[in-house]
């Protein structure tokens, strides 16, 4: 079971029409190498789930601007100035979720739960726009949101071993750990030289090896 591969091979697994979860908050923790390669390989009709879409200069932002993305699910897109116009002209569909709802929908998808029950967005445009469905449970009103899953998850990690165990550093973790559970295929772009199985302390591991399918070593 060799999980180590190249950026080219890892990204070649993505099919046109796939739903991708791409990690990162602003550009921290985003696998820039993988996003750049998705542009290069000209993958089409993608749906992308990410917190904020990066910025127009980042590979993820350029991918969203490329015309090859049919839908984005984000919590914020303040750096992507052209996105609202692209939405208006029908070039792309934008779904905005409260950030806490977005991460929890991804967790529900990855952890086999039926969805999220939250107060976030209740009695707001989120509910009016039909993104959440009001349910009455345990004596209270909640907004229900269905789980999110992806065909492929692409994230950045700081350390890894060749079994796929992952560690993050600082604010690199953000959506990255949870997204690993919600992708049918998981690709991690690893910053530091990838270690051998057993070289990471078992209590410190943030994503368990069996969940990760492919590892790409960033240039070191």
């Amino acid at each position, binding site marked *: 079971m060799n999980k180590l591969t190249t950026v080219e091979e890892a990204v070649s697994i993505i099919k046109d029409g796939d739903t991708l979860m791409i990690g990162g*908050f*602003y550009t*921290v*923790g985003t696998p820039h190498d993988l996003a750049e390669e998705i542009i290069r390989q000209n993958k089409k009709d993608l749906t992308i789930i990410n*917190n*904020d879409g990066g910025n127009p200069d980042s590979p993820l932002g350029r991918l969203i601007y490329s015309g090859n993305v049919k839908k984005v699910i*984000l*919590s*914020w*897109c*303040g750096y992507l*100035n052209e*996105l*609202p116009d692209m*939405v208006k002209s029908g070039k792309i569909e*934008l779904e*905005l979720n*409260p*950030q*806490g*709802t977005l*991460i*929890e929908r991804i*967790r529900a998808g990855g952890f086999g739960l039926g969805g999220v029950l*939250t*107060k*976030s*967005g*209740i*009695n*707001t*445009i*989120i509910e009016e726009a039909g993104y959440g469905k009001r349910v009455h449970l345990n004596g209270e009103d909640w907004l229900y949101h269905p789980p999110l899953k992806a065909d492929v998850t692409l994230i950045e990690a*700081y350390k890894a071993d060749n079994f796929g165990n992952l560690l*993050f*550093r*600082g*604010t*690199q*973790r*953000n*959506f*990255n*750990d*949870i997204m690993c559970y919600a992708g049918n295929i998981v690709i991690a772009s690893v910053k530091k030289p990838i270690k051998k199985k057993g070289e990471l302390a078992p209590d410190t591991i*943030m994503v368990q090896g069996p969940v990760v399918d492919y590892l790409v070593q960033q240039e070191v």
Partner: protein
Amino acid sequence: MNVSEQLTVVKTLSKKEKIAKRVAQMFRDGSLVNLGVGLPTLIPSFIPKEVEIWAHAENGIVGVGPPALKGEEDYLYVDAGNRFCTIKPGGSFFGSATSFGLIRGGHVDFTVLGAMQVDEEGNLANWMVPGGKMAGMGGAMDLVVGAKKVIVASEHCTRDGSPKILKKCTFPLTGARVVDIIVTELAYIEVTPEGLLLKEISADTTIDEVISKTEAELIIADDISVMNV
């Protein structure tokens, strides 16, 4: 510092600094606090020395420290406002699921946000102008339903002088019936079941001026006092 020096310092505070200074007085030692972008970032410098607060960042920090010094930026230490930051001794990093768990679960003691509009019911609109540029709500909708105390820290009126504290918000809401306290450069107002309770006014205004600059009905507190800023 003698009294006249102190007076000078106070006089040089901008509107925003006054608001920040008043909000800073609400925190207790050990409070976990989420400070929004803009005005709320001025608050930490007004926190009394004997009070240690813990700043929470949505992207996964408890104990956000001062901005990183030029040349000492760590590319993986970035706060929720996209600034290179540091972390205080005792701080911790974690993922978004835990971060919003802390928020939704009521573990964040205070969240301080700006407002486009706020109203008598405690409704808050601070993320979207109808027909305006769409930027998204980020974590604001979670913060206003989850934090123990939701503080709106905002100038009393819009740039063109019209009231921000309304009978009823007209912009899309960030949260319904969520605001606990409104702090402006003129007033400290509590949201109560009976309506907006004016508890303090700044030294350089009058109750009448505050009323005239507020569309919402204000209940004047019996023990109304002067804001200590």
